[in-house]
């Protein structure tokens, strides 16, 4: 066990959030009704995505500081897993939106902002694929990654707060204020967020290790 404790913690926390997410009482709000429970499953996807993208940014900067390709691998793999989590976030959000806002896709600033930032990261993957030389690829990708992260923060965290949005926490609405989330929701929500971040990190670590084995065989 030893080094795997955080993986088990992630599984335990998400399992807890599944049990608590369905069984713990929630505020009875109109329109949302029982779908407020999606908060425990839809939003952690975004938190996990942003955590992984920040981890990726960290390693891109580390790469530029010493040009160690190991950092480039970590940055690359975490963007890939983050995009998968972001896709889950988008799909679950679309289902939720259809039943509460009446449409799979609304012209909400947060929705469009998220779509743009996910495309920005998709371009990161494409950019990597278009450069042959490993070192050159890593350098260009690392610089681009810094730009992409800043755009992501602007589009997901800043601009939606400056405009009217259907999402809580934007256009002057309190994000996790007492209006949307009471304290019983918090005791399920925060463990869910931490749990999903750990699961995302676990999958990323597996991908990083696979790439390492692949490289040692390639250059052996």
């Amino acid at each position, binding site marked *: 066990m030893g080094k795997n404790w955080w*993986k088990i913690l992630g*599984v335990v926390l998400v399992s807890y959030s599944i*049990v608590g997410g369905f*069984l713990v009482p929630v505020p009875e709000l*109109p329109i949302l009704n029982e779908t407020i429970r999606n908060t425990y499953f839809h939003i952690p996807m975004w938190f996990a995505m942003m955590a992984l993208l920040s981890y990726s940014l960290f390693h891109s900067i580390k790469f530029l500081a010493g040009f160690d390709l190991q950092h480039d691998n970590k940055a690359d793999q975490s963007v890939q897993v983050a995009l998968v989590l972001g896709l889950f976030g988008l799909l679950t959000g679309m289902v939720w939106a259809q039943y509460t806002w009446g449409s799979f896709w609304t012209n909400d600033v947060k929705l469009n902002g998220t779509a743009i930032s996910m495309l920005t990261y998709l371009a990161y993957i494409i950019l990597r694929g278009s450069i042959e030389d490993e070192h050159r690829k890593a350098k260009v990708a690392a610089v681009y990654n810094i730009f992409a992260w800043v755009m992501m923060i602007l589009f997901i965290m800043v601009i939606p707060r400056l405009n009217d949005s259907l999402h809580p926490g934007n256009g002057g609405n309190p994000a996790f204020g007492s209006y949307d989330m009471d304290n019983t929701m918090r005791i399920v929500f925060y463990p869910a967020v931490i749990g999903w971040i750990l699961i995302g990190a*676990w999958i990323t670590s*597996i991908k990083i290790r*696979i790439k390492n*084995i692949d490289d*040692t065989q390639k250059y052996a």
Partner: protein
Amino acid sequence: MTLRNMHSNISLVLTAILFFLMNGLSAQGVEMATNMRSEGKIYVVVAVVLIIFIGLAIYLFSIDKKLDKLEKNNPK
């Protein structure tokens, strides 16, 4: 009574009826899945989702173990 007066009277009455109807609806409160909970069927849903998630987690662990072996066979 002119026709126009009658019209405005009717619309006034209709508005009043609508108002009382809306009031009655909101007094019932927000509809939640209380029945599903009281019947205990919600536990079935929880069990199914838990089995899927823990199953996936065990699968991830087995992939993890396999990687440990591969790393031993492919030292850097």
